[in-house]
């Protein structure tokens, strides 16, 4: 019963972070601030959801599996956010893969 209550509290808290992260990704003005919102959802949102689910897991394998998922998302999510920020800084925010950069070939710029 206590376990169920803890699950509800933690999962709801996680959902709140996901919702906040989504609102941030939608409303913030540029890539860097959006990344800030994204990492909150990545780390805390998923972390709290998984912490809540830990109370429902039966057996060591379930717990270990959940913790492994969390560790993976923590590591890769953080690094991916960093890499996206770095790429945006060095390559510019508005380069899109199928468009030529306007500086290179003015004729292509409109595409």
């Amino acid at each position, binding site marked *: 019963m206590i376990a169920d209550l803890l699950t509800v509290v933690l999962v709801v808290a996680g959902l709140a972070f996901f919702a906040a992260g989504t609102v941030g990704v939608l409303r913030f003005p540029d890539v860097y601030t959006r990344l800030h919102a994204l990492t909150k959802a990545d780390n805390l949102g998923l972390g709290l959801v998984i912490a809540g689910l830990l109370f429902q897991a039966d057996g060591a394998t379930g717990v270990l599996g959940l913790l492994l998922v969390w560790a993976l998302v923590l590591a*890769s999510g953080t690094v991916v956010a960093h890499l996206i920020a770095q790429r945006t800084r060095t390559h510019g925010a508005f380069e*899109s893969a199928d468009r030529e950069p306007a500086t290179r070939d003015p004729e292509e710029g409109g595409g």
Partner: protein
Amino acid sequence: MSAVLFVFDVMLLVGIGGVAWHCLTSTDLFRAVVLFIALGLLLSMAWVRLEAPDIALAEAAIGAGVTGALLLITLERLKHLEALSPTGRDPEHSTGSSAGRALLSGVVIALVGALGLLLIRALLAQPGQAGLQPLVDAQMHRSGVDNPVTGVLLNFRAYDTFLELAVIVLALLGAWSLGRHESVPARPVPGPMLPGILRFLTPVAIVTGVYLLWAGTHGPGGAFQAGAVLAAAGILIVLGRPRRLPIAPDQPLRLGLVAGVALFLGVGVHGLLFGPGFMGYVEPWAYWLILAIEVAATLSIALALVALFIGGRPHEEDR
């Protein structure tokens, strides 16, 4: 419960339809590719809802991982070639006469819509029961494994799986016949983060792949999922090389690529000579034969997908 799941299903289907629509009508190719990756994730959730965790695993690994990376790199290759010789350009703007295009669109929409209605009609006429499931269930104890999907793949319909492995090798031969590989055009983001994360992710991906291979005999998982995850690990290694692609040793590469098909064929012929017939297993050995074939098939699938990601045939042949 059921009402909540109903809402979930409706939202999921609306999402899938909307994402597919925007993916296919987008003029920005990069946007289309990102939407395609998102579509893979949504489809994976749909497969979960349809009680097909095996398929969800494969879709997550292939749709979101392998195909996504492949599409992104292909866009980059096309852009690179565009830079080398800017002759043919801006395909989405070369629309020809707009009236003709509109007419074509209209005709195609009408035909596709009619086809869709026909398909729905055919679906409504389907009897409401689960096809061959009772038959598989009745024979499951003879298959040598506990996961029915693996049993069907590697025992009951081994022929299909064998030919499917051959098709993968064929696709790779086709890609190799196009000439030398296009190197992955890439200038990585500088700094220690990318190599660091690759050093962390690659071993975890390899362990996960092996785990899925082992899990496949009794639960969701198996050669295809494991091959896809291992291929993702290989793609990570390819992407992690700062400058050049690793040049694989030729003979082992080719042996690995055909290992799945060759072992499958060998076991099939063994069944023909000593057992119940072509592609049948001598029963007490079924589990071990299936496991051996799965290991070889995993290796072949992973190598083939990585080789397809790299593109043309390996360097050494050209020397």
